[in-house]
């Protein structure tokens, strides 16, 4: 192990899950043992919730309803725009409405296995238990899930499972779930229980005597920098996939909140675990600003293939059946097109590396609906996937009803995030992290339709139940702007902004972001090796150095300045990228979405090294110049047997 890049600190452990009772009872037991806060005291306590996606929106609404004073922050104009809105495919729940052998235990098992045995059993089991309540809650809120003619809810299948447990609302499931949470949140705002801070970006965490007590934020319209205090702070700011510049995230998706909290002492867990989604619209030009996902649900009916011969440039419709390679069906006969994402992505890369990729730059594979259209008829296909087909046509100018879609993997989701215990509390007491921003439930690979489940589980059910144990010691001593911790945080934020504006160099923020993204995709993307990561680690500090001496940011900070917003975010991405590479380099095994070229089976599948790496890597930040400190949390498997994943 390259010890020059990090040092090893004390191991870390989750001490909150009651492991003295069987796994199926741990969540109820935790809720029973945790202290409560009586309604009169709740009114005396303030909770800051940063983020209004599925996780933050549902948490803020639920806490507001419970009687806490909630302050809600988000960077867009309306809470309804959080990037959860873009989730297409669906949300899992162990309802077993299909009577196909599903159960809480099976969802638990599938998720641990799908995560390639790098997640915590206790958390995943709880997620599976709570999943059923989510569907009930959402239906009651009026989420218009797809239904069958009898009026009952419909389900579809997603990758990595052999049951049908995914609930969906055409190709807009995230939108509909988010509007459910958004409406609940707006109701609490109207009731005066939740204070609203739209277009407000969190730029630092205020820590007093070791506890998270507030945030420093910037009003993106007026530029005003303000402080906000609370008894607890909840971060629900989403994932950091935009490190790669091109991803399926929103343009504004950022790591700023979690990264700055990391610099205040919150450990960052498994930063190298990123998910590359197999079905996205391929890159088409230099100026491209983002990538668009085509939902995994399409793999229910679409068949993935490339020509058998390399360099075959015929129109796909002219390529006869026996000259096509339906490679997923060939290699994985029992899961076929529905293998988990990491596997589907890597195989797409493999066939393209062999020179059998399709499209202008050879970086694409076909996703073909001809057979489905013939079997089900066009109207049925339209009803299931209409909006996705339209989106594809709009972006590419091609008609997927007539010619196969071209798809290629793209960065989509980050399994890594701030370390949290079973209560979802970070290593900074009083700071909780929920949704994609934490690392908790998906191990080294997330199964489709499980992020929506996790976000809503965290926000509606888990956090509101666990935060009471912490708040039972509150309310905490009042602090104000004159407190040294607040003064220091505000000055730090102001100084950084001023520095960015003063550089006045010769390169745009976007050019740095593009360079960083390309480097990360090439060297820390679908496949990583010691060599590639070392190269990245040589280059990233140079990019950082150049950024801080040669970036050009225009305007001032007392006004609406999108260039400045972007600059702050890119500065954080550069630092986070470095930690991702250190993590990827230290984890000398392949697991899930983390594929190290040095560690594969003879068939080219990810080869784990359980003896040495069955742990969560929780990184502690150290000031520039000192390498980060690794704290290991050992993973123990009591209920699921550690095994080589097989989807053959």
């Amino acid at each position, binding site marked *: 192990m390259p010890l020059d890049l990090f040092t090893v600190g004390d191991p870390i452990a989750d001490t909150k899950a009651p492991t003295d009772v069987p796994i199926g009872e741990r969540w109820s037991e935790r809720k029973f043992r945790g202290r409560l806060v009586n309604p009169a005291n709740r009114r005396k306590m303030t909770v800051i919730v940063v983020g209004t996606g599925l996780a933050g929106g549902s948490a803020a609404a639920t806490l507001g309803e419970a009687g806490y004073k909630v302050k809600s922050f988000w960077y867009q104009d309306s809470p309804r725009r959080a990037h959860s809105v873009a989730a297409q495919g669906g949300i899992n729940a162990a309802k077993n409405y299909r009577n196909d052998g599903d159960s809480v235990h099976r969802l638990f098992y599938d998720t641990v296995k799908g995560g390639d045995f790098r997640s915590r059993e206790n958390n995943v089991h709880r997620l599976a238990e709570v999943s059923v309540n989510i569907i009930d809650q959402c*239906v009651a809120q009026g989420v218009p*899930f797809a239904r069958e003619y009898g009026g009952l809810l419909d389900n579809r299948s997603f990758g990595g499972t052999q049951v049908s447990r995914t609930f969906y609302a055409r190709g807009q499931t995230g939108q509909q779930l988010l509007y459910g949470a958004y409406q609940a949140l707006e109701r609490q705002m109207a009731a005066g229980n939740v204070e609203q801070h739209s277009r407000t970006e969190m730029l630092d965490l205020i820590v007093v005597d070791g506890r998270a007590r507030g945030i420093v934020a910037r009003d993106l319209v007026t530029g005003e920098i303000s402080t906000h205090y609370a008894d607890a702070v909840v971060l629900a700011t989403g994932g950091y996939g935009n490190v790669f510049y091109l991803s399926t995230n929103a343009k504004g998706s950022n790591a700023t909140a979690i990264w700055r909290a990391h610099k205040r002492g919150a450990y960052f867990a498994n930063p190298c675990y990123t998910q590359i989604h197999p079905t996205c619209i391929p890159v088409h030009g230099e100026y491209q600003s983002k990538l668009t996902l085509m939902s995994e649900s399409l793999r229910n009916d679409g068949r993935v293939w490339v020509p058998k011969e390399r360099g075959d440039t015929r129109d796909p419709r002219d390529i006869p059946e026996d000259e096509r390679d339906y490679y997923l069906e060939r290699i994985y006969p029992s899961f076929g097109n529905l293998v988990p994402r990491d596997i589907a992505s890597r195989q797409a890369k493999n066939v393209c590396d062999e020179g059998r990729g399709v499209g202008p730059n050879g970086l694409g594979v076909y996703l073909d609906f001809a057979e489905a259209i013939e079997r089900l008829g066009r109207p049925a296909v339209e009803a299931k996937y209409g909006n996705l087909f339209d989106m594809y046509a709009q972006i590419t100018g091609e008609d997927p009803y007539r010619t196969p879609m071209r798809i290629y993997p793209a960065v989509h989701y980050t399994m890594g995030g701030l370390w949290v215990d079973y209560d979802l509390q970070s290593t900074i007491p009083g700071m909780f992290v929920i949704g994609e921003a934490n690392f908790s439930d998906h191990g080294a690979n997330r199964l489709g339709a499980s992020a929506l489940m996790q976000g809503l589980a965290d926000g509606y059910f888990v956090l509101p139940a666990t935060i009471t144990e912490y708040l039972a010691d509150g309310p905490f001593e009042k602090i104000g702007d004159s407190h040294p911790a607040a003064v220091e945080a505000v000055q730090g934020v102001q100084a950084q902004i001023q520095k960015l504006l003063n550089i006045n160099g010769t390169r745009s923020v976007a050019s740095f972001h593009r360079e960083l993204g390309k480097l990360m995709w090439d060297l820390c993307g679908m496949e990583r090796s010691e060599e590639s990561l070392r190269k990245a680690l040589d280059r990233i500090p140079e990019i950082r150095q150049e950024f801080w001496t040669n970036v050009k940011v225009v305007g001032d900070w007392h006004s609406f300045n999108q260039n400045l917003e972007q600059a702050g975010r890119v500065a954080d991405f550069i630092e986070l990228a470095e930690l991702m590479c250190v993590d990827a380099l230290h984890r000398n095994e392949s697991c899930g979405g983390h594929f190290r070229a040095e560690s594969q089976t003879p068939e080219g599948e990810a080869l784990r090294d359980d003896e040495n790496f069955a742990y969560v890597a929780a990184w502690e930040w150290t000031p520039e110049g000192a390498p980060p400190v690794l704290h290991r949390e050992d993973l123990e498997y009591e209920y699921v047997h550690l095994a080589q994943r097989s989807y053959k």
Partner: protein
Amino acid sequence: MRLTLRIWRQKDPSVKGTMVTYKLDDISPDMSFLEMLDVLNERLIMDGDDPVAFDHDCREGICGMCGVMINGKAHGGEHTTTCQLHMRSFKDGDTIDVEPWRASPFPVIKDLAVDRRAFDRIIQAGGYISVPTGTAPEAHSTPVPKKDSDAAFDAATCIGCGACVAACPNASSMLFTAAKVTHLGLLPQGQPERYDRVVNMVTQQDLEGFGGCTNIGECSASCPKGISMETISRLNHDLLGALRAGVKPKS
């Protein structure tokens, strides 16, 4: 492609704005409209000028954050969002006018970005079903006819972009409000609050200063999500029912 852009520039709400002309060559027809604006902005930044402020986030037609008037049409008039509009819809040599939504309840923040929080306040007035977390009955206890659930979904796809308001000569927010009233009103879960909801939401949109609906239909014609005028009929029907039943807006 070579293009001439005429873009509304307004530093902040306190000053008057004007149209400013920019020339671009080297635009690819495969670019999205916003990528074309990115190219312009990168050039402005390198020249030390203030880039054009515009709202956007998902860039895939679902968050509702983007939205500008393009040649006088909301989102460019192609039944899609501004971010999903591609330059192949324009011709080499075109002159393109780009302006913000124009409606007094949506004040300009800067250049092309406007403040649409009035929409959130309309939702706050009643665009929800009151169901505290953890109190919901088993999801299958109430079957919903597929036809109703599909129609509710269609209305629920409104992304709150505001194009309907911008397109309407009266700056009415009726289509937006009607979409929510229809979504929730078609579901059994939405029945208990149905009349209160419509009365309170309509009252709020009046308070925000949106204009009245005179059934012109420009809203639906500009809506990227195809929200239909039928939703407005449903709203009116519910409103009438509510008034007959003597439902009063909450203060």
